[in-house]
């Protein structure tokens, strides 16, 4: 990762910017597996798989390599091979690869749970089909002895199935009861147990009605719902883990007269840390040697680099842009400003009122009603007929018919379909309830630097530069790796300027670039070094002629479209930035945002979002920096780009995977569609209940009717959810 080609990927994949998580992971680091994991974001076809595997197997020491196209990863079993070599090999055949930290990926644990669900679904499906086969025979009028035999066979299939496949519901119902709550799983478990028990009783007394098929089918459909729910969360989690694993935290430190590479967690106060150009500082410290410029955009929102020299105090998370620095560390790990920020975020997250999803609200209203209905059916029939068996039978069928299939199946099915759709558009939903919250927003708050803009400035007014001066500027700028110089060089080259011929080009750390042009010294850099007064970057053409190069932020792709689309959706869009007033005002005017605020500190941002919430507004916060993290955690729902700091991505509900901001507006539309679809599903299932429950209460619901009503409502609801795509 150290050889990343441009500044943007250096920011997103730096070696040492997540001090806080690193400290927690130190324990797990001890048992690192020998496997290497590489992320392959671009593989998509059979040819890619073959190319990657052939190339990796050709490397000496690699024993096995297998591409997982679903996860876009390759797992390599190898000895004595470093990830850098493999990334290089893949780069040579034109496949982009990134090292993943295998310790951060807890793939096996998650797999086991998914396989567990699938196995239970398989068993329930097998039992359901066989029992159905027998039930159909009974319904079509099997005689006394045959019916009893079929019931006994059904019982033999159903009981092991209920015990094995019903475990997730029983366990969760037990937990709910122990916590003195009535979750959705309590009526489900009660219905399953009551149906199985009643059916066994009926079978022993050679009765006509048995509910084995209903009990097993209930388990099957609800397990499918659980599995879908699990799948969508697991996919989001694995992608989020991958984003975190992309940043392998290491730092270069002087120890005993030699420079060693250490995990960030092993840093100590007083260490002399060597910070290379392009590196991110992992702890707080003071410069003791070197001059450079620091990019603080992720911390403060300032879009322009700040020049620093010996004695300057640096905070963790800043990126060193030009010259190498030696930094004496003053605070590491838990004491660093990065970690303090993480604690503030945790506090904000716990303070955020716990959101109750539509499904939870519906369950809360629905569950007592179901129990009450079944109980009153039991009591009523017992009083009317003095027949315990009949009363229990009717209570069981009421429980089975009212069982909340729409809640168990419909919400996860819609959320899975909507998350899948958003994933294809480049948005990763980390939390299912985020979609519902996104559908409720009325305000969108954008951060500026790194969110609406790329954080890479571009020259604003090059018209003032003549052809000759432009040529000198281009030649000077091309000789430096400073991001401002590179932006200037790109802009001039795009204008068609030809570079002037310069001699003795050299870069002065922390100052700028100088060279000799037609016998004169020409310089590009800081004002005081060039011989001018004022802020910003200046071009000196010798003999006192100076020219100021102004910069403005470059808009992120899709930013203008996203703002317009969000305003068209009837949302009020606000801009909230830590940058200076002129920069923010210019951007707000360019994008047509009337409501903006500049020079906002992290606490200001959090306060503004809290004010919005207490004013009855639901706000979507879009931001990327450390200065946004508290606000992200506090907002009703939050989105951060993949280039954001790990802390910001952790605090937000949705991660934007691509570079473009345009999907944000589409996400709001998709979320609103999803919410409408969930409500439709509730209506469908309530409609079924309105027909079926009175029948069951009157004792008219045969097992056939119960089975039909239940599976018809489950299937309608699933099909309705599929319309999401």
């Amino acid at each position: 990762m150290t050889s990343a080609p441009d500044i943007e990927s250096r920011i997103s994949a730096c070696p040492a910017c997540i001090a806080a998580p690193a400290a927690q992971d130190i324990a797990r680091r001890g048992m690192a597996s020998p496997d290497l994991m590489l992320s392959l974001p671009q593989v998509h076809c059979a040819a890619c798989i073959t190319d990657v595997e052939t190339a990796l197997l050709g490397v000496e020491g690699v024993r096995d390599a297998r591409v997982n196209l679903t996860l876009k990863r390759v797992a390599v079993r190898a000895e004595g091979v470093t990830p850098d070599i493999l990334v290089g090999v893949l780069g040579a055949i034109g496949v982009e690869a990134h090292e993943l930290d295998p310790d951060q990926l807890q793939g096996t644990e998650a797999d086991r749970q998914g396989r567990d669900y699938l196995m239970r679904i398989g068993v329930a499906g097998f039992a359901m089909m066989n029992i159905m086969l027998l039930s159909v025979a009974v319904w079509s009028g099997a005689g006394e002895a045959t019916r009893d035999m079929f019931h006994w066979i059904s019982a033999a299939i159903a009981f092991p199935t209920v015990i094995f496949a019903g475990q997730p519901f029983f366990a969760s119902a037990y937990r709910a009861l122990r916590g003195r709550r009535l979750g959705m799983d309590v009526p489900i478990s009660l219905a399953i147990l009551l149906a199985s028990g009643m059916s066994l009783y009926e079978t022993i007394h050679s009765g006509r009605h048995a509910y084995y098929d209903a009990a097993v089918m209930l388990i099957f459909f609800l397990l499918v719902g659980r599995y879908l729910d699990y799948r969508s969360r697991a996919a989001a989690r694995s992608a989020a883990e991958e984003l975190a694993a992309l940043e392998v935290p290491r730092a270069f430190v002087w120890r005993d007269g030699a420079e060693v590479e250490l995990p960030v967690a092993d840093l100590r106060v007083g260490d002399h840390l060597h910070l290379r150009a392009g590196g991110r500082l992992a702890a707080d410290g003071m410069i003791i040697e070197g001059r450079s410029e620091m990019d603080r955009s992720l911390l403060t929102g300032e879009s322009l680099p700040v020049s620093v020299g010996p004695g300057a105090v640096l905070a963790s998370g800043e990126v060193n842009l030009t010259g190498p620095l030696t930094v004496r560390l003053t605070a590491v790990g838990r004491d660093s400003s990065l970690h303090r920020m993480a604690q503030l975020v945790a506090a904000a997250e716990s303070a955020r009122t716990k959101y109750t999803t539509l499904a939870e609200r519906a369950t809360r209203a629905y569950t007592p009603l179901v129990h009450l209905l079944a109980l009153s059916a039991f009591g009523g029939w017992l009083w009317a007929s003095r027949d315990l068996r009949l009363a229990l039978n009717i209570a069981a069928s009421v429980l089975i018919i009212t069982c909340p299939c729409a809640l168990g199946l419909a919400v996860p099915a819609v959320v899975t379909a909507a998350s899948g759709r958003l994933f294809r558009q480049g948005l990763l939903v980390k939390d299912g309830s985020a979609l519902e919250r996104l559908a409720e927003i009325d305000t969108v708050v954008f951060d500026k630097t790194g969110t609406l803009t790329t954080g890479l400035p571009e020259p604003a007014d090059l018209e003032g530069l003549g052809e000759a001066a432009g040529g000198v500027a281009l030649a000077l700028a091309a000789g430096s790796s400073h991001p401002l110089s590179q932006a200037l060089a790109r802009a001039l080259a795009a204008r068609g300027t030809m570079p002037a011929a310069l001699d003795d080009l050299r870069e002065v750390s922390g100052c700028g670039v100088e060279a000799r042009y037609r016998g004169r010294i020409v310089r590009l850099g800081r004002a005081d070094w060039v011989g001018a007064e004022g802020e910003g970057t200046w071009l000196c053409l010798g003999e006192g002629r100076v020219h100021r190069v102004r910069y403005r932020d470059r808009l992120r792709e899709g930013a203008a479209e996203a703002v317009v689309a969000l305003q068209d959706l009837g949302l009020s869009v606000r801009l909230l930035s830590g940058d200076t007033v002129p920069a923010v005002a210019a951007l707000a005017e360019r994008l047509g945002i009337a409501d903006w605020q500049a020079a906002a500190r992290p606490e200001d941002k959090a306060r503004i979002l809290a004010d919005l919430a207490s004013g009855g507004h639901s706000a979507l916060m879009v931001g990327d920096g450390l200065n946004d993290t508290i606000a992200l955690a506090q907002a009703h729902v939050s989105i951060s780009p993949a280039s954001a700091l790990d802390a910001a991505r952790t605090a937000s509900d949705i991660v934007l995977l691509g570079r473009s901001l345009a999907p944000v507006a589409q996400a709001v539309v998709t979320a609103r569609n999803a919410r409408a679809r969930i409500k439709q599903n509730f209506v469908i299932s309530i409609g079924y209940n309105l027909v079926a429950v009175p029948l069951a209460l009157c004792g008219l619901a045969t097992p056939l009717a119960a089975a039909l009503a239940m599976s018809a409502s489950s299937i309608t609801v699933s099909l309705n959810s599929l319309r999401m795509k």
Partner: protein
Amino acid sequence: MSILGFLIPISLVLGGVGLLAFFWALKSRQFDDPKGDAERILSNAWDDHPKR
């Protein structure tokens, strides 16, 4: 009706074989990468004598 005595066990056994096959597929991690498996059969690189 004595034919039921054969047909029901046969259908159960056949269904059970299917279930066991599903278990085996699950255990041998054949559902880990559905997208990759769909693409792999299009690959031109095959092995006439696989190791396993």
